[in-house]
């Protein structure tokens, strides 16, 4: 399994690996918001947590269809299916690789982008914590969506249509936690719910993704 993880990191880092893709998109989304909403800093400050969470979510969504598509085209998926690695392990490693190459950079970059939206100082720590807890769920759910649409020709649009409704609980609790943090309220309830959802998805969804991949490999 470690071999697969290392290989995926190498692939992501190499030219055309799409490592900075999500990050660049996140920056673009955050910079576009003031153009759309207007530069009043008071307004930006109130919506900053929500915008940052939406930006992170959309950046995750953007790089989902690359998870299996490349391995599907060059036949690696078939070969991996006959390897001793159980399909559930392959799916989990793929989700982890996606999280580290896309999710983690978003978490680290979020405070910097929060400056652009002059988010209140109290909000930084809850924002980073909520993203840290929420993005793994986004990657695991996204991997499920990617597995569903791996064989389809124009699967990208369908992938977003399938995955976005599944993102709703994580988005609600994540953004709520960041917003409460920014307004100085207590953030324990949304934090616990967010962590619960993430743990639940990480524990259960790989089985569904593995089943879906086996169906698609037929």
């Amino acid at each position, binding site marked *: 399994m470690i071999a697969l993880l290392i290989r995926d990191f190498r692939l992501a880092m190499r030219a055309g690996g799409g490592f900075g893709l999500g990050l660049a998109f996140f920056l673009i989304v955050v910079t576009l918001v003031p153009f759309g909403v207007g530069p009043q800093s008071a307004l930006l400050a109130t919506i900053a947590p929500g915008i940052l969470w939406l930006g992170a979510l959309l950046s995750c969504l953007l790089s989902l269809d690359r998870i299996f598509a490349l391995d599907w085209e060059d036949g690696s998926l078939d*070969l991996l299916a006959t390897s*001793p690695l159980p399909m559930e392990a392959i799916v989990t490693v793929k989700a982890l690789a996606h999280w580290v190459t896309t999710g983690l950079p978003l978490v680290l970059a979020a405070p910097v982008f929060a400056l652009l939206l002059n988010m209140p100082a109290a909000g930084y720590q809850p924002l980073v914590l909520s993203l840290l807890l929420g993005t793994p769920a986004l990657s695991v759910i996204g991997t499920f969506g990617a597995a569903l649409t791996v064989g389809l020709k124009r699967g990208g649009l369908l992938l977003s249509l399938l995955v976005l409704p599944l993102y709703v609980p994580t988005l609600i609790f994540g953004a709520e936690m960041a917003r409460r943090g920014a307004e100085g309220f207590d953030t324990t309830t949304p934090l616990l719910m967010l962590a619960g959802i993430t743990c639940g998805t990480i524990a259960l969804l790989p089985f569904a993704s593995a089943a879906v991949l086996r169906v698609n490999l037929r």
Partner: protein
Amino acid sequence: MGLSVSDLSVARGGIRVLEGLSFALAPGQALVLRGPNGIGKTTLLRTIAGLQPPVSGEVDAPADSLVYAGHADGIKATLTVRENLGFWAQAFGNSDISQAMEAFQLTPLGERPAGALSAGQKRRLGLARLLVTGREIWVLDEPTVSLDVEAVAMFAAAVRAHLAGGGLAVIATHIDLGLTEAEVLDVTPFKAKPLEHDDFDGAFL
């Protein structure tokens, strides 16, 4: 420890393509599948390799003993030859790739990114992967496509060595591999008879 297939029928896109297939292979034996294109050789090989469930009948082989090589070799263009082979070795649980590199004379190409290889070299890398997995039963679909004569001889030698070492191989190919000891099975007689059209339920198979 061999591979035995009994009364196997396989379907592609929900429709039966081959049925009633049975054969058994003891260690050291090879089987070459012949038959026109599109008759279902690939579907049969994928079912034997366990990538898809058979419609009926069963394939029994010791667990984790099969390795499948299809048309696409699973080579990552941005990784070097050594990294590609090394990954597949670790994925299958062992780490020595030098022996496989020798068998297909890939050592000089070790550090070159796979994207820069010719079709024949890529194919040799794909076949070298078989050696690295250390699996007994090779299930190969058109392995010698885009290989020049000299590479085909290299491949035949590797297969012969594999068989000598007690391995088995099921190979679908058109050209003669020079494997004298391999049995040949023409799958054309096993083509699935289309069910009579008036049985309404049957149409769902």
